[in-house]
């Protein structure tokens, strides 16, 4: 960081707005503004920027917190790709992403479409749909265990009415991840809220014109609603992907990673190395790989977004 307060001399000439030198009052304003955000800047530097950079350094060391870090080069990274559990937790996490993101999108969107219907008591429904999202993860994970209980649970009871012998859900390694994905939809109210706002922003006249032209509901959804809420979809995709990559609380509480490591997520395994084995170097390397994966997926989403995100009124 540059020294603070900044030296007077060169300061004058370096601060420019639009190529012109800053006027005196502008400069004063700038200093004032900086002073106002200083607490945040310091917090960011100390609690975010420094740890991020430090973890990059630690990822090339063997570090047990109380001993001095020892430089080992790429050793941690090499070891990771021979670590069976690491690869397992990585594939599990990608499975979570592949399941959570699209299913969450559909559920959120369908809920949003229902919640913009012109009904008298719609406010009540909105409240009910959003309500589960404010329940703490621990509470709903515990309820979820019962919900999906193979013998006594609600889901298998309902399936039983239709003569279906429900799966073992969390007790079956082939179903456990999917069960967690399903249960996560409990929090779909948040996504629905964002979509609802986006849908309500769409000008009515577009639909009126479409109705005059004899468009069906599906056509209107496909040609008007979906394209015009695409900015919200972009936001959702990025946030949901990053969230799914970091999934921790549900599997940690509901299964602890079992059965047979089938629900072990990336961050759970990272946590284990960082805080149970106090293997900070290894854990830091894991964190950086996850960071790179996150960056890559976000980049991919943004890169393709030019093709499918539309802003109403903006020329392409």
């Amino acid at each position, binding site marked *: 960081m540059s020294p603070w307060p900044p030296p007077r001399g060169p300061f004058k000439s370096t601060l420019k707005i639009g190529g012109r030198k800053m006027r005196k009052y502008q400069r004063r304003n700038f200093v004032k503004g900086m002073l106002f955000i200083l607490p945040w800047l310091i917090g960011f530097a100390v609690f975010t920027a420094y740890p991020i950079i430090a973890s990059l350094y630690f990822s090339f060391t063997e570090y*047990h*917190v*109380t*001993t001095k870090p020892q430089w080992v080069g790429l050793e941690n990274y090499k070891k990771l790709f021979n670590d069976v*559990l690491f690869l397992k937790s990585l594939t599990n996490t990608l499975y979570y992403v592949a399941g959570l993101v699209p299913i969450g999108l559909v559920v959120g969107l369908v809920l949003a479409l229902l919640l913009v219907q012109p009904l008298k008591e719609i406010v009540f429904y909105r409240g009910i749909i959003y309500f589960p999202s404010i329940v703490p993860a621990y509470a709903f994970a*515990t309820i979820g*265990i019962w919900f999906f*209980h*193979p*013998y*006594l649970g609600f889901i298998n009871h309902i399936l039983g009415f239709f003569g279906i012998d429900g799966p*073992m859900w*969390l*007790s*079956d*390694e082939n179903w456990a991840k999917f069960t967690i994905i399903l249960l996560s939809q409990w929090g779909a109210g948040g996504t629905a809220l964002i979509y609802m706002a986006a849908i309500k922003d769409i000008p009515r006249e577009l639909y009126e014109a479409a109705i005059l032209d004899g468009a069906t509901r599906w056509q209107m959804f496909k040609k008007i609603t979906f394209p015009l809420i695409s900015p919200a979809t972009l936001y959702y995709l990025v946030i949901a992907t990053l969230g799914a990559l970091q999934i921790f609380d549900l599997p940690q509480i509901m299964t602890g990673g*079992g*059965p*047979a*490591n089938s629900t072990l997520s990336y961050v759970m395994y990272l946590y*284990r190395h960082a*805080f*149970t*084995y*106090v293997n900070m170097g290894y854990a830091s390397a894991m964190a950086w790989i996850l960071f790179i994966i996150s960056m890559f997926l976000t980049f991919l989403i943004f890169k393709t977004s030019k093709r499918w995100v539309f802003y109403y009124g903006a020329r392409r």
Partner: protein
Amino acid sequence: MRKLLLILTLIVLSTFAMAEVVEIVFWHNMSNPVDKKSIEESVAKFNKTHPNIKVKVVLVPGTETEVTKLMTAVAAGTGPDVYYLDRFTVAQRAHQGVLECLEDYLVQLGVDVEKLKSKYFDFAIAEATYNGKLYALPWDTDVRVLYYNKKLFKKAGLDPDKPPVTIDELDEYAEKLTIIKNGRIEQLGFIPWFGQGWHYTWGWAFGGKFYDEKTQKLCFADDPKIIASFKWQKKYADKYGMKNIGAFQSAYTGANLNPFLAGKLAMVVDGNWFLAQIRTFAPKDFEFGIAPIPYPVYGEAGSTWAGGWSLVIPKGAKHPKEAAEFILYMATEGQVKYAIDTYHLPTYKEAIPGLVEADPMQKYFAELLPKAHCRPVIPVGALLWDKLTEARDYILWGKKTVEQALRDAQEEVQEALDKALGKK
């Protein structure tokens, strides 16, 4: 002369009065109200009898192998003076440089260390020692036994006063006590890995050996008895199916729900603390018996293993000498009181009579203590535990053969151990 003496006593007295009271900070995680109260009372008594020291008790989160708060505090130089640490990780933490050598401070206090050691059970001292020196004084301990439901025994036509002694009997009884209807498990006789049926529990009951101290080599993957103990557990997994057992177990997720207490699991291996749970949570008319852990003919009769906690001085403690004085008090007098108050088994032999007097049923557990096993004292104890648990899961779920799973675990932990011991 008299004047001189007077002045001298005055000087001594005034320095005594002026001597600053040293405050030491004690972190523990015994949040259970009964345990907490006993600790607080002992601390209050210590503060009264040691006017130059004031102990401040702070309840901090932490579990057996999870000591995040301690590690970060020690790294930052803001750690406590006394910490409550799971004993089987003492060697590991001492190796990582998190602990001060307690023995050095005890010697400074003029304590006869050899004599002090003899007052504790051997396994507890072994766990508290690293590189031949005491890094901790042992706190409480525990043992594992077989609990069985007498009512279910009667219902199945078994003699409620004859618990299974051998593994063959256990298998036979388990079969008779199991009820399966329409493919659903309604009642199970026994699940080997439930409760405290850990890898260590069965490995030792089968007469196996996990670690050779002389060569500093892990040897469980080469021990036919340990292999047999896992193969025996696998038979249960195959017979009932892991999914079905998982479904059966998942009805009892939660703190005080236990299939044994609900009368759905007829036999279980659990710790001595389970007795308190039975008394608190089981139905009024619950009838149960306690028996040694069953063993095969070639195994070890009355085998059990003990864990428990200890008191240590973290690195960077501001007043290590006073901390050692407090630890010494707690691990002796404090333990006598703790045993009576909480029914935790003591590692301090003199605390046993008080415990047995307070609760005669504890006698059974106390008698098992002198020859209890303890987990290998190595600087990678937590890793070994996790890898053994992982290997067991691979075996039960049929992901690896017994031999392969144990071999993989042994190689991985041995590598970490060699590194920790500076052999590589």
